[in-house]
């Protein structure tokens, strides 16, 4: 019964979406201003229907209703509850429903907030949003219905791929989708502004919070995915330049560019048409990501069971959401007038460079990801483009970006430098030379990319600290009575996010330059060297978990001075229901680096294969990601509080 309710509300949501998409345009035609008030209400009804539907699916997973085909195929009664719940989005149909769920929640959120936004604009934006929603609801209902019933229910389900039974994975898709789908709202804003000819300051002001939320979630989602891959896949890496990872990186780069360019529109009414274009491209790239994952075009850990009709359907959505918007852009774009010529030495020019480099970076990722597919289609030759390509193209561009990140924040809007910024750059430059010199000397030479990476990180770190100190000091010297209040309203969001990048870079460089690894075939009692540390294989034992049996190795790590660092217990798990084995890496985390052990195959006579890694500073990567994501949220909150104060000031 509950399943049928879910199915019914999904159909209802589809019909509501169609109405919601039609209302603003009908209202335009009929000149019915009042009708525009209907769209936000429809958006809320739509969100209610989809939420009911989504909850019904989760319920079917919770109670293990195996008469539902999806549950029978992907769940099992012996699974822990949390993975039963997360299992509802660990498959194609369920994750699609979650996508739609988040989409409708964003619609309702816009309907309920930003009361001051002109009715016409809000209505049109929600209308465009509803069209996307209708397309995906049709996709779900006609090709991937999660509520399909089986005529005879099996006694138990097939189970969920054990690799996917994990907390990281329970959280990774929802956050990533929050980001992808958040970009849909920026897209809807852009299309609505093109339709209404209203690309201006206010438009940017209303759109910006959504971009910040989407960007923050996307950053966190990608970070979670990388964290999961790091500890679960047992390869010890955190980024593999896998096509599906690239598919999430491209919209991230576009969204990062958008996050910055929308500020320029809000402050200076510059870069207007470019920002509109970025909003369209950002969402198109996230659809492209979805297409790659769903179509079975690529094989990777992310692929769901592939089905050509589904691929075609998404391709149709993709073409429909890129083609007409770009046409609209071509027609309306020339009408958008930006604010006079750009000064070379100004904050806005700095942000243009930021956008330019980010777009270049995403193009290199695009080429590396799609060239193999294109080549195979054209000539049938099968190739892969590996990490070296991305290191040779993506990394230098991002390096340049990091250098400019140390410069642009010290530029002022319109024209000129912040006083004393030359001093900051001198300090940063000398710090860069001295510290990278020390690194070079200490290591008896490092590769050029390694030194360049260290140098740019130091540059950014010092320039950032300089910027923060300078602005706070100037504020303090002006001796305002409300120093603290004003201090809170400084650009903390940007600073936190940029500090996040420095921390991230420290992690990435520490692991990239100083990691060590060793592989050995060992019997209990034997010892292996890992860099300057030692690992002793103490014992091997059996254990059984809730739905698996495990083989556990115990390793004792000691450093040069024979001080114990810790005990590592990597596992090999056998899941009888799914008939699969997985390796569970053991990780000893410290602030200055992780020790990572994986148990390979083996037996008691020949010994066991054991892989060990030392990964200096690797956790800083995820600290950095968290800071970046919080920076965007902080910026949103600070901006709100500032606006509220301004309003209060106007009223009194």
């Amino acid at each position: 019964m509950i399943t049928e309710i879910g199915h019914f509300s999904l159909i209802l949501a589809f019909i509501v979406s169609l109405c919601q998409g039609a209302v603003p345009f009908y209202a335009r035609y009929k000149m019915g201003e009042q009708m525009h008030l209907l769209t936000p209400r429809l958006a809320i009804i739509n969100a209610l229907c989809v939420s009911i539907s989504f909850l019904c699916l989760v319920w079917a997973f919770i109670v293990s209703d195996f008469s539902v085909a999806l549950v029978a195929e992907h769940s099992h009664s012996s699974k822990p509850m949390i993975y039963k719940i997360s299992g509802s989005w660990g498959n194609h149909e369920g994750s699609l429903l979650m996508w739609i769920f988040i989409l409708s929640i964003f619609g309702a959120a816009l309907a309920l907030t930003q009361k001051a936004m002109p009715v016409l604009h809000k209505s049109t934006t929600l209308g465009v949003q509803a069209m996307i929603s209708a397309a995906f609801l049709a996709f779900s209902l006609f090709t991937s219905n999660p509520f399909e019933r089986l005529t005879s229910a099996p006694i138990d389900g097939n189970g969920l791929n054990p690799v996917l039974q994990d907390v990281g994975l329970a959280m990774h898709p929802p956050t990533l989708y929050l980001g992808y789908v958040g970009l849909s709202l920026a897209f809807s804003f852009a299309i609505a502004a093109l339709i209404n000819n209203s690309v201006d300051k206010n438009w940017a002001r209303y759109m910006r919070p959504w971009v910040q939320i989407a960007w923050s979630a996307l950053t966190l989602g990608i970070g979670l995915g990388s964290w999961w891959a790091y500890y679960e896949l047992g390869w010890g890496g955190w980024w593999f330049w896998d096509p599906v990872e690239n598919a999430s990186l491209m919209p991230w780069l576009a969204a990062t560019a958008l996050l910055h360019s929308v500020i320029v529109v809000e402050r200076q009414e510059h870069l207007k048409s470019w920002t509109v274009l970025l909003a369209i491209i950002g969402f198109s790239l996230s659809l492209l990501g979805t297409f790659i994952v769903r179509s079975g075009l690529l094989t990777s850990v992310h692929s769901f069971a592939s089905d050509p009709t589904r691929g075609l359907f998404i391709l149709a959505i993709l073409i429909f959401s890129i083609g007409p918007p770009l046409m609209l852009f071509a027609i309306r774009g020339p009408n958008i007038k930006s604010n006079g010529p750009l000064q070379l030495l100004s904050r806005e020019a700095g942000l243009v460079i930021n956008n330019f480099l980010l777009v270049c970076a995403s193009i290199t990722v695009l080429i590396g990801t799609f060239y193999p597919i294109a080549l195979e289609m054209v000539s049938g030759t099968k190739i892969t483009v590996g990490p070296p390509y991305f290191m040779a193209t993506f990394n230098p561009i991002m390096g340049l970006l990091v250098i400019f990140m140390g410069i642009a924040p010290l530029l002022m809007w319109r024209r000129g430098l912040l006083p004393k910024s030359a001093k900051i750059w001198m300090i940063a430059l000398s710090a860069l030379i001295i510290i990278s010199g020390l690194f070079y000397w200490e290591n008896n030479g490092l590769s050029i990319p390694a030194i360049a990476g260290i140098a740019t990180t130091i540059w950014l770190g010092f320039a950032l600290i300089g910027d923060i100190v300078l602005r706070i000091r100037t504020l303090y010297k002006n001796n305002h009575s409300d120093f603290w209040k004003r201090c809170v309203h400084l650009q903390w969001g940007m600073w936190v996010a940029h500090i996040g990048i420095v921390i991230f870079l420290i992690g990435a460089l520490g692991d990239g330059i100083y990691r060590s690894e060793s592989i050995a075939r060992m019997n209990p009692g034997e010892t292996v060297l890992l860099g300057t540390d030692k690992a002793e294989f103490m014992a091997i034992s059996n254990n059984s978990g809730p739905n698996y049996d495990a083989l556990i190795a115990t390793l004792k790590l000691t450093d040069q001075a024979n001080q114990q660092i810790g005990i590592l217990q990597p596992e090999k798990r056998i899941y009888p229901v799914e008939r699969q084995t997985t390796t569970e890496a053991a990780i000893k985390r410290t602030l200055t680096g992780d020790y990572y052990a994986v148990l390979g195959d083996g037996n008691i006579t020949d010994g066991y294969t054991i892989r060990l890694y030392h990964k200096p500073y690797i956790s800083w990567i995820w600290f950095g990601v968290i800071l970046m994501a919080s920076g965007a949220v902080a910026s949103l909150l600070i901006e709100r509080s500032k606006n509220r104060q301004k309003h209060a000031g106007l009223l009194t």
Partner: protein
Amino acid sequence: MSPKSKRLMLFFVATVFLATAAGLTLSALKENIVYFFTPSEINLQEIGNRSVRIGGLVQSGSIKIEGLTASFIIEDADSQQVVLYKGALPDIFRDGQGVIAEGKFNTNIFIADVVMAKHDEQYMPREIADKLKEQGVWQGDAPK
């Protein structure tokens, strides 16, 4: 500078940068492409000292492990290729498994740096699935 010459200069700088970026990208692409072959497609002269990927099924009974070094044979319908690999084999590496090895040739033995097989036991790398279906060795997954 007049706005016009400024714009020209900006355009010039952007073009130079883009051209350099495009050049670097293309050369990086050219150097870092890894080709994929099944054993019957291997042409030693053509491959030379390049890094390539070899894919196929692990021949039954061909796996020999000595300490850390494993030797095994990757086969397709018509041909076999001996592979040497030092390191940890993937979890589900076994007879009849579809695998991909990346590495270089030393005379006619393939020295692999990486051996890939996915966690899913039904997993078949798509490149292999396509080619093996063409050759009729493997019929695809049993329908689910």
